[in-house]
């Protein structure tokens, strides 16, 4: 696994997002599922219950793909990266609106952009010979 950037990234990001998803519940006591104003995780990142569930699902998808094979990791990294890029752009324009059902704030947007760039970059750029190293 340590020879494949995609598997390594998916596994590490998957574990981190699972942890963030679980920790998020410590900051969302009394916060509604789709509340536009959530609690602050680590005093910086705003989350609500829906945001936590999204982190858990994304973390699980990345971790499973990372532990499976290169092709799965490459695919999930690219798809999640593209989704985060879209969320990073859309998130900027729905702040303070009723459409902000993930309770996104500015710090979230920076993190979403950074995650998008890294996941998409590694998903598209690394492990080109995916057939030969499918189980690396």
């Amino acid at each position: 696994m340590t020879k494949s950037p995609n598997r390594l990234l998916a596994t590490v990001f998957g574990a981190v997002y699972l942890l963030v998803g679980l920790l998020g519940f410590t900051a969302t006591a009394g916060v509604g599922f789709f509340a536009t104003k959530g609690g602050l995780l680590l005093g910086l990142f705003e989350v609500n219950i829906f945001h936590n569930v999204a982190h858990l699902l994304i973390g699980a998808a990345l971790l499973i793909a990372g532990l499976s094979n290169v092709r799965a990791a490459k695919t999930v990294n690219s798809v999640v990266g593209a989704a985060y890029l879209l969320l990073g752009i859309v998130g900027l324009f729905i702040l303070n609106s009723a459409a902000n059902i993930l309770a996104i704030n500015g710090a979230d947007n920076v993190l979403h952009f950074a995650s998008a760039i890294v996941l998409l970059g590694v998903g598209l750029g690394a492990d080109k010979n995916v057939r030969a190293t499918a189980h690396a």
Partner: protein
Amino acid sequence: MTTTLIIRSWLAFAAVGAGVIHLAVVIGSPLVFGALLLALGLGEIAWGIVILVTDRMVVPRLAQAGAIAPLMLWALLVVAATLLGAPAVAAPLRFLPMAIAAVFEIFIGTVLSATFRRLAEPGRPASTRAPASAVRYLCAVLAAGVLVGALTTPALAATQAGTVALEHGGTMGGMMDMPGMGRH
């Protein structure tokens, strides 16, 4: 033209960052500026993705010119607006997003120039470096990703579209409490 995957990744990230900013600046720009920025932004994003997906640097000379020319044109526009005493001419291209896009463009232009110079040295092989390990590659990509994310987000927030989104009292968690940003 051959470059390492790390260099190509950094160039691609910078190109995508600049492209997203240029696309955001289209909103609220006059038609001529908007058309140029739209073409530039789409071209930058497409180039960034193509050099990642293919294993080579495509149209490097055009990319170098495409990185430097908009910067020169913007600088000329600002100088002309200042000399003519007509700041409204350059006002649609807000300073912060254009400046951050310029940082990405300068990075692309500099790296491409350095690569051209390296390849032009007589007797120098195309690539002498062994591929980076997965951990080293990921560290390089993570650092670049965090940097591009941290630069692109405030740049987008400072565009007219971003300002409209924020003007109902938001400050992006306190990150946008800078002069000229967020509230107008």
